[in-house]
């Protein structure tokens, strides 16, 4: 039998095991214990000599102090901004890390590459990305003279004219040196030009004519849809400007939280900007001009370039660049003799950020040579218009070759090849969805049958839940009553032995009242009566109720009357010892017959 202490320990172990088992089905956090990522970010890409730029280093996967090394900061005065740690749990995925901030004050003009930042973690060196910052002497925005106002906004175009398809960038900068809230702005709307916000807004500080401003910058791509001259209407920023109420002179309480400021609606606007869309020149336009406007590169690769007969090789074309990337055409693979080709679905990734709109399109084919020898894939060309050079250009790839090793006998080409043979790798295509649609409706008749749970009344639910504990409590109660009765029965059975003990100790010659008292207690306990004083008649009646014979109960009554007479009337009959013996004998008879 297990000892109690050991049993308790086992119980707790089992409870712990169960909890861990059940929780492991619910929580599936992923801790990247061994992978770290380091990212370098700037709050803006352009600055002037009077600005300060925030550089943030984010290290994911660790917590604690780090000492990074960041090259490229020799042209800046650097001040530490502080560090903080973060811990996120999103949909069961856990991530944690450190942010460190630095403020850079440029010392001279130019374009500077900062990074990569290097951090030693657990004895290994990890590197981040690089970032680029362009520092100019003065801001190029118009309306800089508005720096006398506490709030103003400027609008600028990256260039005043563009070709159809060429993307121009429209930048709004909202400067404010007072408290504002509830900002809302809508881009200009004009037929023939399509505006689209690029990424989220950025915020930074800037100095204009010696005054410090907070700046919110929004960038839009502007795509001309038709030729002509346009005037981009002004953009308006609406806001509520917070003003101090009269009498609220205490600086600490100037915060809007304390209700001592009021909000005054205000708006600022920009100037309108002229813009022209020029037609693409006809001179030099290739016949197969793709319609692309921007700067593009084309790369072609083939892997592997040495294959066995019947094996496949993957031919990839990657077109990347800046401009109207969404219209990058699907390249048609020229016919190559003795080669079967299987085209994959082209993949286009467009990136719209504050740096502009760029994209990369990847097209792949599986080429399966049918004969041995050398196969040449001719050069691939892509024509586009470069608006910076104002000429049509052609991006080309180099011709590529695939060497096909001598085919084995044709009969063997038909043999079954094992999948486990690494030397012969069958071409497997990734299954990609080329279309999406919803699944059909539910038809079965039981689709509209309500589930049992919906048909339950709250009383039914209560009945189902509370009936088992109610039954348990009833059984508990009945058990308790039975045990109580048993105790009662046990106690009553012990009454006789208790009486014999008392009678042995009592002196019958001088202490008869004690005898009566002991007998009274005996009858009360034995017959489970209320405990009051019992007369001889009561005792006779109760004894007969409990199946004691008439003779015995009547004898008992006479004996009790004799005892009472000797106590109350002082009458002496039998000798005390005789009385004692008679009493004990009578009690024994009663004990044999009584049924309680």
């Amino acid at each position, binding site marked *: 039998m297990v000892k109690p202490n050991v049993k308790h320990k086992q119980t707790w172990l089992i409870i712990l095991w169960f909890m861990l088992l059940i929780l492991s089905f619910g929580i599936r956090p992923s801790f990247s214990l061994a992978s770290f990522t380091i990212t370098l970010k700037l709050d803006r890409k352009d600055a002037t000599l009077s600005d300060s730029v925030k550089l943030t280093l984010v290290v994911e996967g660790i917590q604690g102090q780090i000492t990074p090394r960041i090259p490229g900061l020799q042209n800046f005065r650097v001040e530490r901004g502080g560090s903080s740690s973060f811990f996120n749990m999103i949909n069961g995925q856990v991530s944690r890390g450190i942010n460190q901030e630095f403020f850079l004050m440029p010392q001279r003009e130019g374009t500077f590459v900062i990074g990569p930042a290097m951090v030693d973690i657990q004895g290994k060196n990890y590197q981040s990305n690089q970032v680029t910052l362009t520092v100019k002497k003065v801001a190029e925005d118009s309306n800089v003279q508005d720096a006398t106002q506490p709030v103003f906004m400027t609008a600028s175009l990256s260039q005043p004219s563009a070709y159809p398809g060429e993307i121009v960038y429209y930048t709004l900068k909202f400067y404010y040196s007072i408290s504002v809230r509830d900002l809302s702005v809508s881009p200009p709307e004009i037929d023939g030009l399509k505006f689209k916000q690029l990424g989220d807004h950025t915020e930074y500080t800037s100095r204009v004519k010696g005054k410090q401003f907070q700046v919110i910058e929004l960038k839009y791509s502007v795509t001309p849809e038709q030729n002509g001259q346009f005037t981009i209407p002004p953009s308006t920023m609406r806001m509520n400007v917070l003003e101090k109420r009269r009498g609220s002179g205490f600086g600490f309480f100037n915060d809007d939280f304390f209700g001592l400021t009021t909000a005054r609606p205000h708006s600022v606007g920009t100037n309108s900007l002229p813009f022209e869309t020029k037609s693409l020149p006809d001179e030099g336009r290739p016949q197969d001009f793709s319609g692309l406007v921007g700067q593009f590169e084309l790369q072609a690769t083939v892997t592997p370039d040495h294959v066995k007969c019947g094996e496949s090789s993957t031919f990839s074309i990657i077109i990347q660049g800046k401009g109207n990337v969404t219209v990058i055409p699907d390249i048609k693979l020229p016919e190559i003799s003795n080669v079967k080709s299987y085209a994959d679905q082209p993949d286009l990734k467009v990136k719209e950020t504050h740096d502009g709109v760029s994209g990369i399109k990847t097209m792949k084919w599986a080429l399966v040579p049918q004969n041995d020898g050398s196969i040449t894939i001719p050069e691939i060309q892509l024509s586009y218009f470069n608006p910076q050079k104002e000429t049509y250009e052609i991006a080309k790839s180099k011709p590529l070759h695939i060497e096909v090793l001598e085919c084995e006998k044709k009969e063997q080409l038909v043999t079954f090849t094992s999948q486990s043979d690494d030397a012969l790798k069958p071409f497997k295509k990734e299954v990609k969805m080329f279309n999406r649609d919803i699944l059909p409706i539910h038809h079965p008749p039981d*689709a509209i049958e309500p589930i049992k749970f919906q048909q339950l009344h709250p009383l039914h639910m209560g009945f189902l839940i509370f009936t088992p504990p109610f039954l348990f409590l009833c059984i508990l109660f009945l058990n308790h009553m039975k045990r109580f009765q048993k105790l009662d029965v046990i106690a009553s059975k012990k009454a006789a032995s208790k009486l014999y003990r008392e009678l042995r100790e009592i002196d019958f010659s001088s202490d008869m009242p004690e005898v009566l008292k002991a007998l009274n207690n005996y009858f009360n306990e034995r017959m489970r009566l209320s405990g009051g004083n019992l007369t001889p008649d009561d005792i006779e009646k109760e004894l007969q109720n409990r199946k004691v014979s008439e003779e015995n109960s009547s004898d008992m009554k006479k004996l009790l009357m004799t005892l009472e007479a000797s106590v109350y009337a002082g009458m002496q009959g039998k000798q005390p010892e005789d009385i004692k013996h008679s009493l004990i004998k009578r009690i024994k008879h009663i004990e044999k017959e009584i049924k309680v």
Partner: protein
Amino acid sequence: MICTASEAITPVNTHALFYDANQAYEKGEFETAIQKYESLLQTIPPTGSLYYNLGNCYFRLQKIGWAILYYERAKKLIPSDPDLDFNLRYARDQIEDEIEKQTSNPMIFMLENVSLAELFWFFVIINTLFWLMLIIRRWHQSEWSYYVLVGLTIIWGLSAMSLSIRWFNDIKDVRGVVVASEVIVRAGPEQNDTGLFKLHAGTIVQCERKDSEWQLIQFTHDKRGWVKSEDVIQIADNHASYF
């Protein structure tokens, strides 16, 4: 969509109406199918499949907001249905707004694929076994019954907690779906109040309170505002009451 059927719908012809609605859907008469499904909802307790079919009809009509609303209502009743999961994922991909990731309690995340009915019945069974084992232990105290009771106690506690959490979440579900194609969220419950941000059809928001024709909603912790009540419908439907 208001049902205007004049004939009484008896239990016998609910199946006929359902069949007609399905036929209308197959023929491409989606508006007719919606009317028939809606009239069924007026008379019988809603089922997951009924909501699912309604979601499909609205999806075909390219009303993504309404489609997602009905898919979400179906998800409360049949959360593990694979067809519903597939269609809801596809519909969610059509939402224009970027949904910001929200942190979630792992326990609640685990309960999303189990319906309230399933949790309830599981608890009823475990509850019955638990008390039955207690009764058995009154007379038969063996070692095996002891360990079985310990295990049942843990499962009973966890299932009671799960049922309570899930029931509470269902009662306190204040999520709403933007059903208008585009809605401007304003700073106040008036048409000329400042517009703060835009939301598009299918986006899920938290509905806080109503003020005549307007209601206050929250998209993220820093994006709150007022919209017209008709543009955002709450997922928790009175039809979906279990009583």
